């Protein structure tokens, strides 16, 4: 926390070292979140790239009330949501249609080097409607409170809790189905 405050301050003073350090410190977390939310490597990379570029340009205007990690994760979640809206047709797919996040589209130019585990989980998550996926991931993986998620999306806490509950139930059924197989 202390390091982040100093990094932010130095970044706001124009330090390129601070920007590099922030990038190195949080790139993996952001990519993980984006990958599992987007279910698409290219989209995830675009989202994180755009978040960092926008952050790099924000030195003069940035006003951070919470912690840096939460701020960046929220930025990723927001951008991933926008990207998802733009790609509505990908929103929910059937089990057989779900494409793993790493998938066949991997090329040497890709930014992320993904594990099989990420690939597996991305295809599982892809079976959840986006809103449910987002609630589950932001709460469990990004450590955000329901209230924070609700605020960032402009919906009620109960809506988020409902999405989370439905998401978890569906996830349970998918995973238990996997076990039965």
């Amino acid at each position, binding site marked *: 926390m202390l390091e982040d405050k100093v990094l932010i301050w130095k970044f706001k003073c*124009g330090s*390129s070292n601070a920007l*590099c350090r922030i990038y190195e410190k949080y790139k993996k977390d952001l990519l993980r979140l984006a990958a599992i939310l987007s279910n698409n490597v290219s989209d995830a990379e675009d989202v994180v790239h755009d978040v960092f570029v926008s952050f790099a340009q924000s030195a003069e205007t940035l006003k951070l009330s919470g912690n840096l990690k939460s701020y960046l994760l929220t930025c990723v979640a927001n951008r991933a949501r926008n990207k998802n809206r733009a790609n509505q047709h990908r929103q929910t797919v059937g089990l057989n249609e779900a494409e793993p996040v790493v998938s066949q589209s991997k090329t040497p130019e*890709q930014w*992320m080097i993904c594990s099989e585990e990420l690939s597996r989980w991305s295809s599982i998550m892809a079976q959840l409607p986006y809103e449910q996926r987002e609630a589950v991931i932001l709460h*469990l*993986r990004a450590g955000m409170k329901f209230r924070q998620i609700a605020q960032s999306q402009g919906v009620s806490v109960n809506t988020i809790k409902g999405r989370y509950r439905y998401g978890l139930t569906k996830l*349970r059924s998918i995973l238990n189905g996997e076990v039965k197989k």
Partner: protein
Amino acid sequence: MRSAENIEKLVKNLDLGIDTNAQTDQAVLAELLDAQKKSMKQQSAFILQNIRRFIMKSPITKLAATAVIIALVVLGLFELTGTESTSGVVWAEVARKVQASLGSIVRCRATTSFQPSDETDYSIRYTSQRYSRKDVYKAGQITESYYEDFDTNTMTYTMTYFNHIHKHYMSRTFNKNKNEFFLEQHDQWMNPRYLVQRILSGEHRNLGQKTIEGISCEGIETTDPAALGPLPGPINRLEVEMRLWVNVETGYPVLFENKMSGEAEGKSMESEWVMDQFQWDVELDPSFLEPNIPPDYVDMRSL
């Protein structure tokens, strides 16, 4: 069958081993730095650079990569550190006296490996409970002045900088909610009111007595970096040496010496810092500590 709790735990603890392509990392970073550079308008960059210079003026602060931020040394700690000597100086009492001092005046001299040594000869710092002023001297002239106003009612910290050579000034107020760590500047170890506390907060040893400029003094020394308080970032090979000499008769500090060396952001740095010619419990005229901007001075932001 997995339970809901089990699913939650599973998702929470997933190890999604993910790495990044080093080559792409470099390209992305280059793009980010370019974006940062472009977004920092020349004018703003100038202001920010100067604000940083303003805050980071002290070489030792620079060495620590930035300001030593959170200073939370409670007086109760002194009882635990056990420095009380048998020769008369009660260090906890020195700390209390120094802190209770109405105002102080001190001369500061610093040499560093990373700032031109001919930039300043010395500076004089005036400190009251709320305000402080530092005048930087070169060849007998005041070249720069720094004013600080730490308002505990509004929890704001205002810094005003004057460059008397170019007739420039700059003032900025930091608010606790937005810039909380700036507020802690007030009680960092370089503030004469807190330097005794700082030394006592680290492991320290008694140096015994010696005469300094005809005054019988007793000293303590610390080589414990903890005396600096929490550091804002990693500093490698950090070595600290602080010595404080106190007038046995009055119980006030007369000489403070500090040497530091370390590596921050890949650069080795060394600095030496001496505070002497102390005057304690001085009543300073508030108007003297107030930054009055001369009409012919230009706000740096308008440059």
